[in-house]
């Protein structure tokens, strides 16, 4: 494998997996701490009708309209979930399950009827993403990394991921304490006069934005894995809030990066003639991550009992 091959074929998907993992991993902790992991699942699917409509209206797969459409759909889904939950007095899981499957189904129907499907938005890409199709055709060598003309040829998904990731990081840092409080004790946050409802919707908007930015490259299933697995694994590994939240971003990036590397580049470098589906490897690795954390924790507990 030459440097040119790496830059052209492996660098874009690797960067996409890293950024998607870091962004989702950062937000995942808030969902897991609020015991709302399913909301990540719901949002990553509920954004579909927004994406398809934006696509149908603009006629192109461009980042910003799709982002806006997805966030609108995500916000509508969150509002509807809370309305259904209150009006029908359903438990949160049932309300979430009903709304997000409906939204996802509407998205699929819209995809068929608006003709969006015939171009390049289809079910496979929605579910599994298209990491392997991210290529940098203009890459010629290391000098391309500093060549503005060549850099413009980078897949636009990378720009969207970088932009959303940056916004998410800044917002999480700026709202550090309010977010902590609405995760631990939303009632107390409201009693202190903090805008807890607005913060909850803001968090949902960030998750929707991260889900749509990541979804285009890694697919909706992997978005769920990246939102939940790093945060869930850390939940078993630390009892410090900062380590939980920042560690989630680091572990998410590691999940994306290592998962992608194991799928293609590493076997190739070892001269093995196997190439695995990157989304599949990353998803599997997410599950393995949680299982290992659980086993280590159980082992530590047993050791404590034995020595005590």
């Amino acid at each position: 494998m030459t440097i040119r091959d790496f830059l052209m074929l492996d660098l874009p998907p690797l960067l996409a997996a890293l950024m998607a993992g870091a962004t989702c991993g950062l937000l995942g902790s808030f969902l897991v701490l609020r015991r709302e992991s399913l909301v990540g699942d719901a949002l990553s699917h509920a954004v579909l009708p927004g994406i398809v409509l934006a696509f149908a209206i603009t006629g192109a797969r461009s980042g910003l309209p799709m982002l806006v459409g997805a966030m609108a759909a995500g916000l509508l889904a969150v509002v509807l979930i809370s309305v259904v939950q209150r009006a029908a007095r359903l438990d949160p899981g049932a309300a979430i399950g009903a709304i997000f499957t409906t939204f996802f189904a509407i998205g699929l129907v819209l995809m068929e009827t608006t003709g969006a499907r015939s171009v390049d938005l289809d079910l496979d890409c929605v579910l599994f993403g298209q990491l392997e199709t991210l290529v940098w055709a203009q890459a010629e060598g290391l000098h391309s990394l500093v060549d503005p003309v060549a850099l413009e040829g980078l897949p636009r998904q990378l720009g969207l991921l970088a932009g959303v990731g940056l916004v998410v990081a800044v917002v999480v840092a700026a709202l550090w304490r309010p977010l902590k409080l609405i995760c631990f004790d939303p009632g107390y946050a409201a009693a202190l006069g903090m805008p807890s409802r607005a913060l909850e919707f803001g968090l949902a908007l960030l998750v929707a934005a991260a889900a749509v930015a990541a979804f285009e490259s890694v697919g909706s299933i992997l978005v769920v894995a990246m939102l939940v697995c790093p945060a869930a694994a850390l939940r078993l590994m630390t009892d410090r809030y900062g380590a939980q939240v920042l560690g989630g971003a680091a572990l998410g990036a590691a999940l994306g990066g290592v998962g992608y590397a194991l799928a293609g580049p590493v076997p190739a470098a070892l001269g093995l003639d196997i190439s695995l589906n990157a989304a599949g490897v990353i998803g599997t690795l997410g599950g393995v991550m949680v299982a290992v954390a659980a086993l280590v924790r159980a082992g530590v507990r047993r050791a404590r009992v034995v020595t005590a």
Partner: protein
Amino acid sequence: MTIAPPLSVSHLTVAYGERPAVWDVTWNAPTGLTAIVGPNGAGKSTLLKATLGLVPALSGEVRFFGRPLEEVRDRIGYLPQRASVDWDFPATALDVVCMARYPRMRWWGPVPRRHRDAARAALAQVGMEGFAERQIGKLSGGQQQRVFLARALAQDADLVLMDEPFAAVDAATEQAIVTVLRDLVAKGRHVVAVHHDLGTVPDYFSSVLLINARVFASGPVGEAFTNANIGATYGARLALLDQANVRAAEARAS
């Protein structure tokens, strides 16, 4: 000139779905230590939460020290039920107490030293200074309750609303809480607490509100906390149950 009561509620009604939980409550909380007493499901916690705007009221008006909540929020402390949060949350006792001061600091960066000191002082006041760095899940139930009490104290409020401060705590914690409440009142502060143990009302509190959705009696413990009033408050529920039984019997008969 009369001084406005710490908390005054007029014609407050709150319902969950079809069922009214708080029914047309009009009440002025007196100064000092006040208990809200009533049977399970009588709307005691709901009344407290509704005054703070945590659950929506159908109608009614709430004033703290004669003013709307938004104008005096920094004078009102709150101690929620211990069971309302997840104690496995990755936070230390000190982290939790510092939350009381969040409205007075920036939303990011480290907690300023003076607020951290105030939080430590509040922990010391409840006898928990040695547990500041302990993860909250590794504390006993009584210790967790004291952490919540310390957080309410760290708000440095003139009126503290407490939801079941004595629920499921050990005897030592119960005494520690009583001492703290008396200290508060000695400093001219006021406490309104939802309380479930009828036996300790006269020892711990100076005033009482007896409710079962609607107000049955209120006033100084010596006047309002009578057997007749307690019977009426708790009996109303029994009467409702009787009606349901009668209806069920009629349904079977027909």
